[in-house]
């Protein structure tokens, strides 16, 4: 007969326990769960990305409703248990459901600690614990007002970063002198504080909260020194307490948490406890790895394996704030019997500290670069004697034994039992084993089967490296990344098949490549349109309905639905006639803002869509053409004044810039393409952070590419030096054509270059002269069809419907 297993709580620990139990003894129990939260089991660790807007709730659900149905589990959502009757072996919920049990598991988790200050109950004071808290914070953030987060620990900082991301003005108060002092030493805490402040979050340490003030709702917070900080939202993230109330009421032994033996059994042998509410070996836990260990043990015990027991191990701490890399593990306090090795690189913002005792690693703090965390953790776990590699230890695994600095080699060198995923306690051997035995080929598969990188995701890179190592060339992480939900094919496959099968219209591509939707989506249609424009310049009829609005109407849409217009100023050079024409247009159409752009030209903002053709008509009379400031295509070629005027100029940089722009305007590219030509290495045109740049020198032209100065900041790569201007133009054109043919839609040139490799690009464009010529010829051919000024076309009446309402309905006269 099946036994009745009842679980109080539906967090990550009992969820994981059930997974193990269903595997070990699928038919042994009839399972019923009572969840105080009105929802399914989700990944609580990922609440921070939900708060910051990087993820949606649906993406962090662990078990959807279907999972419970499939396994015949009854889930009561929104039921809080109010009583356990141990004599009758039943529990009762606040909504009046009484359920008998043979075995009971208490997994009530923890409750956030509320600082007992006046005003703690005011509306606007929140904690950070579950999805309801996140939703409340998101609601509060809509006001874009001031928020105070009390607590500079892991949760507090993640909450602060999330609120900042949502547009709030955030101050973090921390009672200790440095942030995250339980996980970080003061030096790393200081670096962290700087990084947090660099995001515009204010940090106040040694800050004691005296009261939360406000009339009817939060208006501010008063510190012990009398300082008042105005705020409409106060988030308390100062710690958690195990939620033991229900167990205590039932007469089960509790201390800090619900006391359990190392088999997760409470003082009542039919009742188990696990998760944050449980106290084992005198310790309570709040990080996911030990909680999952408890889940494993509890499941084994419930399945009848009396041998399973909980073993304590240190868990590394990682901060989940995008752009801040931080890793801390073990014991790092100073001590007489301890030595330390410290590496500081102020320029790169790197700090690493290892604490050693008897030539063994006992603690690690890594900040700024955390790639070796797993290796240090492994050394610590195995108590490896490090005296042999002491001198180079701090530089990480790649430096040991003279092997080169190759992250793949470092991963390859890890032992099979080295931990890869700290959250889920998954070692290297388990991942590689699963890949080979189960024939896994995608990251999602590996996550589903091993749980590695399925929680906080910070080890995703390591897992991918393991997949490459195990699968060799057959693992291509990009091949499994489909273009969008309309197809399983990735961008590269689609591009290849368009060429191979000679597909020349969007419907043809969708038919032949078995698109799953009737006419694609806003992601794939613009991509396909670009690929077809690029591959069949003379045959393909551009599908304007598959272009983003800006490229459809040849202007930039603004937040209020008006448009901005940027005419081309070749090489950033203009004259009195052009400026006069612009001034006249601005007056005539009452254009509210005129602004000089970063690309050395003039932007007119706030133009009504209906006025666009008339604006272009006037501009066209002065000789202006579209600047394509809206295009995934050639934007600007920025220049300095060069040898004509500048006393340092080595070549005619202005002339070359204009020549490039006149040659290349109108071309479509995978993503926008911005260029610059500087007349000497002083680089006034800032060519070394452009998609393509030229630095003129006495001996010729240094061609640069793959820079970035937007979301990412990256200096360019040097493609090579050429002697003549003609050659410079040919190289730049060929490089652009190679990118046009190989880039994925919306992939900037620096990302493409990273994927293909700078050496390979150099080989094809600089070294292989015939090949360069072919690229050049194909670009020139495609320009025959691309160099048509879209503005004058529209002045002449093309796409008239775009610029007029279909009808205007007015109220009838009485």
């Amino acid at each position: 007969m099946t036994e009745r297993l009842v679980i109080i709580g539906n967090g990550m620990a009992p969820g994981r326990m059930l997974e193990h139990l269903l595997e070990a003894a699928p038919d042994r129990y009839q399972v019923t769960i009572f969840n105080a939260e009105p929802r399914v089991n989700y990944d609580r660790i990922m609440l921070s990305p939900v708060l910051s807007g990087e993820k949606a709730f649906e993406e962090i659900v662990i078990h959807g409703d279907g999972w419970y149905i499939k396994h015949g589990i009854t889930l009561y959502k929104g039921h809080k248990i109010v009583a356990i009757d141990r004599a009758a072996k039943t529990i009762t919920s606040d909504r009046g459901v009484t359920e008998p049990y043979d075995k009971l598991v208490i997994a009530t988790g923890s409750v956030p600690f509320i600082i007992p200050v006046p005003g703690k109950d005011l509306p606007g004071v929140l904690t950070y614990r579950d999805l309801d808290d996140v939703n409340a914070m998101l609601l509060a953030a809509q006001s874009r007002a001031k928020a105070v987060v009390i607590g500079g620990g892991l949760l507090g900082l993640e909450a602060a970063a999330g609120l900042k991301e949502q547009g709030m003005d955030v101050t973090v108060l921390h009672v200790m002198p440095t942030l995250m002092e339980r996980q970080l030493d003061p030096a790393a805490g200081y670096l962290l504080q700087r990084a947090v402040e660099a995001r515009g979050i204010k940090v106040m340490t040694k800050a004691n909260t005296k009261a939360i003030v406000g009339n009817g709702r939060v208006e501010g917070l008063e510190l012990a020194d009398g300082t008042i900080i105005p705020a409409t939202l106060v988030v308390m993230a100062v710690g958690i307490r195990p939620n033991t109330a229900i167990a205590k009421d039932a007469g089960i032994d509790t201390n800090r948490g619900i006391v359990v033996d190392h088999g997760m059994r409470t003082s009542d042998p039919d009742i188990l406890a696990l998760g944050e509410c449980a106290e084992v070996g005198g310790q309570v836990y709040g990080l996911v790895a030990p909680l999952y260990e408890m889940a494993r043990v509890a499941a084994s015990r419930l399945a009848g394996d009396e041998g399973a027991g909980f073993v304590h191990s240190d868990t590394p701490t990682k901060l989940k704030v995008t752009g801040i890399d931080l890793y801390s593990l073990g014991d790092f306090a100073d001590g007489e019997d301890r030595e330390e090795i410290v590496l500081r690189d102020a320029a790169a913002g790197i700090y690493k500290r290892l604490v050693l005792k008897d030539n063994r690693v006992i603690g690690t703090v890594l900040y700024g670069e955390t790639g070796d965390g797993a290796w240090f953790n492994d050394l610590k776990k195995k108590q490896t004697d490090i005296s042999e590699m002491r001198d180079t230890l701090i530089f990480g695994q790649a430096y040991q034994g003279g092997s080169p600095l190759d992250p793949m080699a470092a991963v390859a060198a890890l032992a099979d039992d080295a931990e890869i995923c700290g959250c889920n306690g998954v070692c290297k051997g388990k991942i590689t084993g699963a890949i080979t035995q189960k024939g896994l080929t995608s990251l999602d598969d590996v996550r589903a089967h091993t749980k590695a990188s399925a929680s906080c995701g910070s080890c995703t890179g390591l897992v991918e490296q393991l997949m490459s190592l195990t699968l060799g060339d057959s693992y291509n992480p990009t091949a499994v990344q489909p273009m969008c939900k309309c197809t399983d094919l990735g961008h590269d496959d689609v591009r290849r098949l368009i060429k191979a099968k000679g597909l020349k219209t969007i419907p043809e591509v969708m038919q032949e490549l078995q698109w799953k939707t009737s006419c694609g989506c806003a992601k794939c249609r613009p991509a396909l349109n670009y690929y077809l424009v690029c591959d069949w310049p003379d045959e393909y009829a551009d599908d304007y309905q598959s272009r983003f609005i800006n490229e459809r109407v040849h202007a930039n849409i603004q937040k209020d639905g008006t448009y901005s217009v940027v005419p081309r100023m070749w090489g950033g050079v203009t004259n009195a006639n052009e400026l006069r024409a612009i001034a006249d247009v601005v007056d005539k159409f009452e254009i509210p803002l005129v602004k000089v752009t970063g690309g050395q030209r003039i932007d007119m903002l706030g133009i009504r869509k209906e006025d666009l053709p008339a604006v272009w008509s006037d501009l066209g009379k002065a000789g202006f053409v579209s600047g394509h400031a809206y295009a995934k295509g050639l934007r600007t070629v920025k220049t300095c004044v060069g040898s004509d005027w500048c006393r340092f100029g080595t070549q005619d940089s202005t002339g070359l810039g204009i020549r490039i722009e006149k040659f290349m305007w109108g071309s479509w590219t995978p993503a926008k393409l911005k260029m610059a030509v500087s007349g000497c290495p002083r680089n006034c045109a800032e060519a070394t952070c452009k998609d393509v740049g030229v630095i003129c020198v006495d001996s010729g032209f240094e061609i640069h590419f793959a820079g970035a100065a937007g979301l990412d900041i990256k200096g360019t790569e040097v493609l090579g030096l050429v002697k003549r201007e003609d050659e410079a133009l040919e190289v730049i054109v060929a490089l652009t054509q190679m990118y046009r043919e190989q880039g994925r839609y919306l992939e900037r040139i620096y990302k493409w270059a990273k994927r293909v490799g700078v050496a390979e690009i150099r080989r094809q464009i600089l070294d292989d002269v015939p090949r360069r010529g072919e690229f050049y010829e194909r670009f020139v051919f495609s320009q025959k069809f691309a160099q048509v000024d879209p503005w004058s076309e529209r002045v002449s009446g093309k796409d008239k419907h775009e610029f007029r309402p279909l009808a205007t309905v007015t109220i009838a006269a009485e």
Partner: protein
Amino acid sequence: MNWFHIGTLDEIPLRGARCVNTPQGKIGVFRTADDKVFAIEDHCPHRGGPLSQGIVHGAAVTCPLHNWVFSLETGKAQGADEGAVRTIAVRVEGGRISLALEMIAVAAE
């Protein structure tokens, strides 16, 4: 409720939209790949984007400002976003499109 003739099917590009100005705000009139016509309020509930300027795919449109996707049939936001736009009843007879508007008005142009 009154029906207003606002134009003909061939005045709207396939997989495209036009907008109609009314005293109660702009209305986007959409024509899908299979020649169905829908009308919704031309104002995204997220940040007020003009939905008639978006890319039309299936019976849905993607807002040009922040890529929210709306069903043209129900007006509801798709996927993880929550929100809805008002839908307006449309009648197409012999290529002539009419909208049902709750006012006494005349159609011009």
